[in-house]
């Protein structure tokens, strides 16, 4: 007996954000990324249009990373050179985007100048054809200088730059407005601050379709379900015509999942946990796939083996079930 599906009717949809620009559009990308636009809850193709699939941006740093060997062994020497590193992510691991973290700018570390950082960005742009996400070193004052320089040097490339936060959003928003980039708006697992930050950014004049929400996820076992509930509320708000929550969401999967001891401790330390190799891959994979179900559009990942599994998951979930 055929079952008639009861379909929800939503009054609005998630906004669509475009990252990257081809030559015709004033940039040098060979491909452009579109995220968002969903007209229903994640993957319910029978109920509404879901045109853009979630994408994976692989992490590249401008200094060699302090990652565990499980991950580093899959890259080899390229970790010493952002250009080679980015190339490997795109050519071998099929990353949709590159997520460039300018850790070298950190005043407590290499303390690289804004000009040096801008040069790294230009080098990576020249090395790959996919769109670029660029964030600073988490030092607010330094990042304002660095991202202003990066925004100017990469004008026309329609980057996604970050991070704008409630206490420090004006400088980066201005840079994005002047040089026409998109902004990551980050809030500390707090939907009310998330909404307020989007209001503040849009009041400066940045169009709503140039904002991507970073809800500051927790990894598996360390706050993942709380992040899920916040992302779910944001998605329902977007579908209910709340324009200040109608942005695609970006998740720092690689960073958060690999902070867990479960992703790093050898079996000898925790015999009940099983082999570290698979465990590390699954910890990052499950963090990512869970957040896909909450509506994540951009996943920032590190472990190539995890990336492969999540790519398969996304492809399977995007098969229409209408």
């Amino acid at each position, binding site marked *: 007996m055929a079952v008639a599906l009861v379909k929800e009717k939503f009054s609005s949809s998630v906004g669509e954000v475009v990252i990257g620009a081809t030559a015709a559009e004033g940039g040098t990308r060979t491909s452009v990324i579109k995220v968002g636009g969903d007209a229903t809850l994640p993957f319910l193709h029978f109920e509404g249009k879901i045109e853009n699939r979630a994408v994976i941006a692989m992490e590249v740093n401008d200094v060699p990373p302090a990652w565990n060997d499980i991950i580093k062994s899959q890259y080899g020497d390229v970790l010493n050179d952002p250009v080679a590193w980015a190339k490997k992510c795109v050519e071998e691991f099929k990353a949709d985007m590159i997520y460039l973290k300018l850790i070298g700018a950190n005043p407590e570390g290499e303390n690289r100048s804004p000009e040096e950082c801008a040069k790294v960005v230009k080098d990576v742009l020249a090395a790959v054809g996919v769109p670029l996400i660029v964030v600073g070193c988490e030092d607010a004052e330094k990042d304002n200088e660095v991202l202003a320089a990066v925004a100017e040097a990469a004008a026309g490339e329609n980057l996604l730059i970050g991070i704008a936060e409630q206490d420090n959003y004006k400088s980066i928003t201005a840079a994005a407005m002047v040089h026409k980039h998109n902004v990551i708006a980050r809030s500390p697992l707090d*939907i*009310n*601050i998330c*909404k*307020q930050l989007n*209001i*503040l950014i849009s009041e400066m004049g940045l169009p709503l379709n140039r904002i991507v929400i970073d809800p500051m996820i927790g990894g598996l076992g360390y706050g993942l379900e709380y992040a899920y509930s916040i992302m779910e*509320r944001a998605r329902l*708000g977007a579908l209910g015509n*709340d*324009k*200040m*929550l109608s942005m695609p969401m970006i998740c720092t999967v690689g960073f958060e999942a690999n902070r867990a001891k479960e992703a790093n401790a050898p079996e000898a330390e925790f015999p009940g946990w099983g082999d570290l190799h698979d465990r590390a891959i699954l910890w990052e994979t499950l963090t990512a796939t869970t957040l896909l179900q909450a509506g994540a559009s951009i996943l920032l990942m590190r472990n190539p083996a995890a990336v492969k599994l999540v790519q398969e998951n996304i492809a399977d979930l995007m098969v229409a079930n209408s």
Partner: protein
Amino acid sequence: MIIIGERINGMFKDIGDALRNKDAKPIQEWAVKQEEGGAHYLDVNSGPAVPKDERPAAYEWMVKVIQEVTDLPLCLDSTNYDAIEAGLKLLKRPGMINSCPAERDKIERVFPMAVKYNAALIGLTMDKQGIPKNAENRIVFAMELVAAADEFGLPMEELYIDPLILPCNVAQEHAPEVLESIRMVKTLANPAPKTVLGLSNVSQKAPDRHLINRTYLAMAMAAGLDAAIMDANDDALVDTAATCEILLNKSIYADSYLKVFRQR
């Protein structure tokens, strides 16, 4: 909460004069002003300013001049159904018909018109005898309107039941009955019809109208009110609606929630 701006009504002197002199300016100014105040719909009512036989043409004219300055959907308000139909024909986006009582002959005229023009419809819980006092008796009329929606194919979410609030200075016993009626309407069908009030009626001829209006709006929203025909330029009233949405967990809180509530 759907705000239906009440100001374009011929019983106001400036609108009445505008209608008599075919002067579009006051009507257009109020359309823009109410949109800025946060209106979702604009009520359009010629009031007594225009003689009966001229009403269809008057409504055509009002719809034309209003649509020149705003994209807001319109709520056509008249007991003259030919005038409403004349206006419906010119609407650029689906509007609302204000209104139809629970009387069979009027139901047969108005419900098919709502379906034909893809319009929402305000149904009044009254008949030729007038407005009942008890919530239960109001609900009897509501049920007739719900049955009519079903009979004529009007989607239930497009039917707005108006339990008809009366002035509290002379008929305060109706005020709690109307709140109870709003609650009960939600149980009549699934999906349920919506509810609407002509809010300003509750404070007719009382001294502090604004206080009475916004207090009753909060009470009615807590009972489940979906829409109100009200003063969209009474900032404290619109702020009350915005705050009620937060307190009913219908909209996500942000410190600037009052500001975004008015953005259309």
